[in-house]
């Protein structure tokens, strides 16, 4: 199969492109800078440039769409331009080019309305209730994508939850930096049960969606490792793998009482890329339960995660040269 992967310079996009190459597919990637994926044809350019999109989809059989503006703050118009308009344009270009399979990579946050999720189903994307520009525009783009599903082009939405792995700058690096500075707090005793996804598993699920598109067309599926753990335990293991001291296990009770805003203050502050490392949205993600019912996902994709949490943390430690 000839597959276009957008956003391949990111950790997950790169992993998806590499996996597809490994599986013998012809892979073209589209992103702002070079993807660095061996064996793939690189197209560099913007999602917002229609000419680039036309070039990128030409002669392809399938599209895996990961490119998005992922950030916690920023100009809402910019989010809309990249995530909504960009997706709409890509869908149009794909249709024109006669593409038969389209895997839209989304996020569970599109259906997240701030309540604890306990063994939850995927739920419909809801832009009105989604929190922050990222989640809102991702919700809109998912609705666009699934709306484009028809007899000629099969579209599915895959929502991996909290993807992490070696080389992860979004979560792992930030957690380690904060822990290194001795300022990694735990909310509500760190007991919130949270699902995460090791990057290789997210990639293999997306690849599975490509193959099993007939089973999942028109659907949105949450993908996780299926091993929910208390957030305190996850952060501690991340720190151990990174060779830095773990989070303080007890937080003064006033922190708990002021949870919402206090967290934001805790997480805000200077860091390298100039953007507040976490907003209330992510703080909520990390302090209330977020775990999902994976039965339908696994059945429809005929897929199970290959890398367990234990194995994932071992690989992370290996990446940092830490013996655990």
């Amino acid at each position, binding site marked *: 199969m000839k597959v276009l992967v957008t956003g391949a310079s990111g950790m997950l996009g790169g992993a998806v492109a590499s996996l597809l190459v490994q599986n013998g597919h012809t892979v073209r990637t589209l992103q702002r800078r070079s993807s660095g994926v061996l064996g793939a044809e690189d197209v560099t350019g913007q999602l917002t440039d229609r000419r680039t999109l036309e070039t990128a989809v030409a002669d392809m059989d399938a599209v895996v769409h990961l490119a998005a503006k992922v950030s916690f703050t920023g100009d809402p118009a910019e989010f809309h331009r990249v995530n909504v308009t960009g997706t709409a344009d890509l869908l149009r270009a794909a249709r024109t080019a006669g593409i038969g399979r389209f895997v839209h990579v989304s996020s569970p946050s599109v259906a997240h309305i701030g309540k*604890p999720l*306990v*063994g939850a189903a995927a739920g419909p994307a809801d832009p009105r209730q989604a929190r922050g520009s990222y989640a809102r525009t991702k919700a809109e783009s998912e609705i666009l994508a699934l709306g484009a599903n028809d007899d000629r082009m099969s579209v599915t939405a895959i929502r991996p939850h909290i993807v992490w792995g070696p080389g992860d700058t979004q979560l792992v690096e930030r957690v380690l930096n904060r822990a290194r500075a001795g300022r990694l707090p735990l*909310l*509500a*005793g*760190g*007991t*919130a*049960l949270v699902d995460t996804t090791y990057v290789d598993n997210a990639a293999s699920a997306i690849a599975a969606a490509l193959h099993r598109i007939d089973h999942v067309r028109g659907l949105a599926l949450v993908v996780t490792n*299926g*091993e*929910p*753990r*208390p*957030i*305190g*335990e996850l952060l*501690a293991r991340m720190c151990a793998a990174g060779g830095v001291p*773990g989070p303080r*296990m007890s937080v003064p009770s006033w922190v*708990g009482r002021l949870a919402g805003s206090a967290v934001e203050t805790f997480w805000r502050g200077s860091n390298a890329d100039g953007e507040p490392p976490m907003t209330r949205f992510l703080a909520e993600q990390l*302090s*209330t*339960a977020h*775990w999902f*019912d*994976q*039965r339908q996902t696994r059945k429809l994709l005929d897929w199970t995660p290959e890398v*367990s*949490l*234990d194995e994932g943390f071992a690989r992370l430690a290996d990446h940092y040269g830490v013996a655990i």
Partner: protein
Amino acid sequence: MVELPGVDPAWSAYLNVPSTAGVDPQGTVNRWHYLDNLPSIAGEVRGTLLCVHGNPTWSYLWRSVLAAGARHGWRVVAVDQLEMGFSDRTGRKRQLADRITDLDDFVAAAGVRGPLVTVGHDWGGVVSLGFAERNRSDLLAVILTNTAIHQDPGSPIPAPLRLALNGAIHRLGTSTTTAFLDTTLALARPRLAGDVRAAYRAPYRTADRRRGIEQFVADIPVGPGHPSHAELTRIAESIRTLDVPVLMLWGPRDPIFSDTYLDDLIRRLPHADVHRFEGASHLVAEDRDIAAPIFDWLNVRASSDDDESEAPGATTPLWHQIRERSRGPAAQTLAIADMGQDGSVAASLSWQELDSRVSRLAAALNRIGVTAGSRVSLMVPPGIDLTVLIYACLKLGAVIVVADAGLGPKGLSRAVRGTVPNFLIGIERALAAARLFGWPGVRISAGAVSPLRGRLLDVRYRLEDLLSEGNAYDGADPDADSDAAILFTSGSTGPAKGVVYTHRQLSAMRDTLAATLQLAPGSALVAGFAPFALLGPALGAASVTPDMDVTAPRTLTARALSDAAAAIDATTVFASPAALRNVLATAADVSDRGKAALERIEVLLSAGAPVPVTLLEHLQPLVPNAVLHTPYGMTEALPVTDIDLGQIRESAASTCSGAGNGVCVGAPVPGAEIRISALDRDGVASGEPTAEPGVTGEILVRAPHVKDRYFRLWVTERESSRTAGWHRTGDVGHLDAQERLWVEGRLAHLITSADGILTPVGPEQAIERLDDVRQAAVVGIGPAGTQAVVAVVEPAHGAGAISLAPTTLASAVRQAVGSEQLAAVLTVSALPTDIRHNAKIDRSAVAEWAAAALEGRGRKRP
């Protein structure tokens, strides 16, 4: 009619009905509204349920019955009585007799034919009974929900009704305002949804529309002078001869139609099947699903006769040994003794004295009105008085009600109230509680109660007076298959249930115990565990109650135990794990004489709760020659299996097929059989009973000493006996190749993860083997079928409120369980246990804590 939630618009119908009621002028035609599910029935109609609502509801009350009826092929016709619902407001004051005639007129006009099942609620219950009693030839069955047919002239009518009838309040409360309507709707448990409340109010929007509510209240026959009183009394008497099947579904939290009224109805219709929905109130049709039980019941009762064809074998009454020994060579030897604080016998009776005292007390109780079938609540601590009381009641055929303080004040009160005892015999503390909680029953005081306190506590008789009467009881022994006792479950899973035993079943329990422990008449035992105090004399064994606060087992000291053993040269000891734990803790205080007495013990039975093996191991040196037995059983079947310490050690090393994953409780006791009903993928025990080793499922028991039924819990009884001939225990486990049973937990505590079903006991045992762990509970949280598995651990030290386990403990626990499936390991300072035994971990409560903590919404304080 407007569209209403739960009602198919096709059911709503109107009918013009010519009236023959006395209150209507000749030629009157009244327009009725009613609901009829006939349009929804596809196939053949099996019969018709005629549903009559009370005040101030309307046919809407029966919508769940209409819906279910359509599915089961039963036509359900629910009328709006005249002046009520959407039926005519005639403006005439209808009395009870009119309303029954009204119903006759409606049925005639509607052309409804038999077979008929009447269904009634509230005052509609009375109307429906009046109709049933007049239409016997068409009548198939009678179903009643919270209603009443008789007001005991000796007791006041319920306070809320007195208030509603008060002249000043009456009109204001019933028709001028919606107070009566609102109050009734507010009785629903749980609260009614807004649209349902609105539906109930729909026909009663104006004061004119509510006039019927006012008149209905006015028609309550409060006394003999009331115009409807004669009709009510006539119906109340005539239903005694109704011989069709009767089902009563009751909400015991009803402030008006309490258990007292239910009990009165049962006395008039003693063959009735009864289910009390614990926690449900007046609007029982709203509070619980009554429709499913109704059609299940109709299937059972209306189709075939219940034949209990089993030919009963010969049996001897429970007091057989008392009678035999009192007439034999052992007549003057010690039968029963109470120990004093000084280590010597404080009081005792020989077999002859025991027999004579039981007989004289039976006669005295009979004189004051205790007869066959009377329920007598006994709230007397174990000892001679209680033993004599128990056997006297049993001899009379009275039913003893044994609810203990271990249920907690609320549970105890619920239990006593629910059994509606006719007599309540108690020590002062119990009588005070009876007064406080308003328990029913004629009061008889046991032990010292001053005359003043006695008057204050409503004491009518004193046990010591009754005991001093001289006549012997010469009545015949009660029928072996009549009710003998109601015992209560510990309520560790839901509200405590009353368990009914017949005389035959009690005798079977005695015989099973004798065979299991090889206790021959003439042996001697220490009864450190209350229920067995009752069985000592039945076994023909001399029994002694040690000096302890028997309501608190942990007060039994080693000294008190050894003194008691020495006093009668005991060879057998019965005690609970809590008592044994304290015996062990106080072992240093035993005298030399006591030590010698303990060395003579041959059998020690630890009963009432699971006993940790380590406790038995530590206990063995104290009773070096005793075989330490620990039976497995439940209030519904005591005992089911038995195992001793040696066999426990053996089982731990066993490698036979099926061994492991659970607590080995040994092989079935003589006369008992065990089968397993395998679990399906959803955790439902749906398998055919099997004895195959290694199959996990619900444990089924068959034995002559299994309970007769649950008390007034028809639905629960039906579920527990749905496999004919077997009692479904609600416990989960498996058998091994040597026919030993391994218990894996409660059915209610199964964990259904995405990987399959997990039972808690196996992993809990693995965790509890860790050094720094005292206890552990393994529970599932989240939606069934995709639950996350959580271990909540009580470490030996250093834990507070529920929180994440330290990393080292967490990984040790994960390793112990031997899998990656534990989502979280939490610690807590103390796991919740049941009140009665302080031994069974309340996993449901643990799961709630864990779920709250793992939601991340802060911590619930355990």
